[in-house]
């Protein structure tokens, strides 16, 4: 029987790795992947707490987070494709100006 704390700690570590990816990588696609990693870490914590308190609502929230993540990825990747088409680059440091 693994303690809930262990799962929450693992989830915190994964979340931080995702946050570091968002801050340090400059490739917009990798940035999105890091956001997915963070969402996954949050999901893991939700499932661990659902087991701890024996409540299925936590699972339901994970379900909703998955749906939102799918929508977010669809829109985000479409934006990346649109930006790449005009700028020929997806380096986010080159996108800090609000120019065409």
């Amino acid at each position, binding site marked *: 029987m*693994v303690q809930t*704390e*262990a*799962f929450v*700690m*693992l989830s*915190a*570590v*994964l979340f*931080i*790795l*995702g*946050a*570091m*990816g968002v*801050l*340090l*990588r*400059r*490739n917009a*696609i*990798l940035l999105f*992947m*890091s956001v*997915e*990693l963070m969402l996954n870490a949050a*999901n*893991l914590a939700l*499932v661990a707490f*659902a087991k*701890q*308190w*024996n409540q*299925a*609502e936590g*699972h*339901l929230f*994970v*379900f*909703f987070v*998955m*749906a*939102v993540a*799918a*929508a*977010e990825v*669809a*829109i985000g*990747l*479409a934006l*990346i*494709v*649109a930006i*790449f*088409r005009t700028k020929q*680059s*997806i*380096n986010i*440091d*080159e996108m800090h100006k609000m120019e065409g």
Partner: protein
Amino acid sequence: MTEVILFIIVGGIAITAAVMMLLSENAVHSALFLIVNFACVAFLYLMLDAPFLAMMQIAVYAGAIMVLFLFVIMLLGAEKLTEPTKQFRWLAPLALALSAAFLLIAGVAITSGQIDLSSPNERPPMLRIVHAAPYAGPVDVYANGELLASNVTAGKSTDFHALAAGDTEIALNIAGTSTAAVTTTVSLPGDNTKQANGFTAIAYGGDASTPPQVALVQDNLETVPVRTARVSIFNGYPEAINLVDFGSETDPSDDKIIVGDIQPGATVELPPVNQDTSLRAWAFTIVNSAAENLSDLNVLASLNNPDVFTIKRDSAELMVVGAEQLLDGTLRAAVIPLVNDAVASFGGPSSIAQLLFTRYLLPFQLIAVLLLAAMVGAIVLTHKESFVPRRRDVRRKVAKPLTSAITDQVGHDVLTPDDRTPKLPEKQPEPSGD
């Protein structure tokens, strides 16, 4: 211990995959490492009793979303587009410091027990009251002075009512009056381990002079094996009874006792009963050790009416064997079937579906609308706008109208003021030769 070892291995792989995702130069490698991470998280979901979410994780995350990522990476040829820029050089040490600080704070908070994990909230007890006392007549049911149901006749049951945990006073008043037929106090504990915490109070027995007794039975509404039902029997008849399966009518050798010698006031739970089991040949009989054949036993009540007595899959059924008074004053056994759906297994698809289609229907619809909007948005964003103007029918533009060019050549106006159609001047008749 096996679980701990598995957790350490799988968690280690998950963290390693996440780190490799961050460090790898090639975006395709990053995506593949992220898939490994998602698979590890799905395995952890399985360890946390969430099989449905584990499958969703594989299908939606590792399948659909990551395929989308890989498509976009390969479509844009963006595998190696991460040359470090000179701007924002201060960001990397700052990010590392902030991450370390957050990990430290979260780690201390989690490991030092600052997160309260010790007090799972208790489920309130649910109580229903069954009226199986033949002499009491219709009653009003009160719990802690609050009316739960009025005019409950013998052989009927109230619905489940959620009550506060602790001692509860149950009063059965003769219908329409404040005269208590029976009053009793039961102790209902809250529970934090089970999905449902149900109790049944059964008023049974008694006669014209003595009040009925009340027995409290804890309902077992927990998950049943697939395609089976759980059947419990409460004996509220004044004598001990048998539950006998008589098999085919003509063959006395296939008669068998399913449960024997159920004492008055006792509850017996049968082994899981298959959903296809027919109750047509089942009957409650009196206990008579002197009888040679089971078919000699005196049948109290038969379960041969398939409209009333059926085995419903995934249900927890409590059969209360009570008594009812005939017109001549004698007693006859009557069986009250109380069928309830068993709680769906924790983390399985049916338990999530039950919540999704009852309490969380509106958020579910909102999510569906959001996904639809995202689909439309993705199509609009990636729709290739044509910056090249479309080839139109370019008319040749002439500086002077055509009619004036003709005018210049023929020497007079080809347009008459009243008629806008250009005309050539009338031909002069040629002089004839004769």
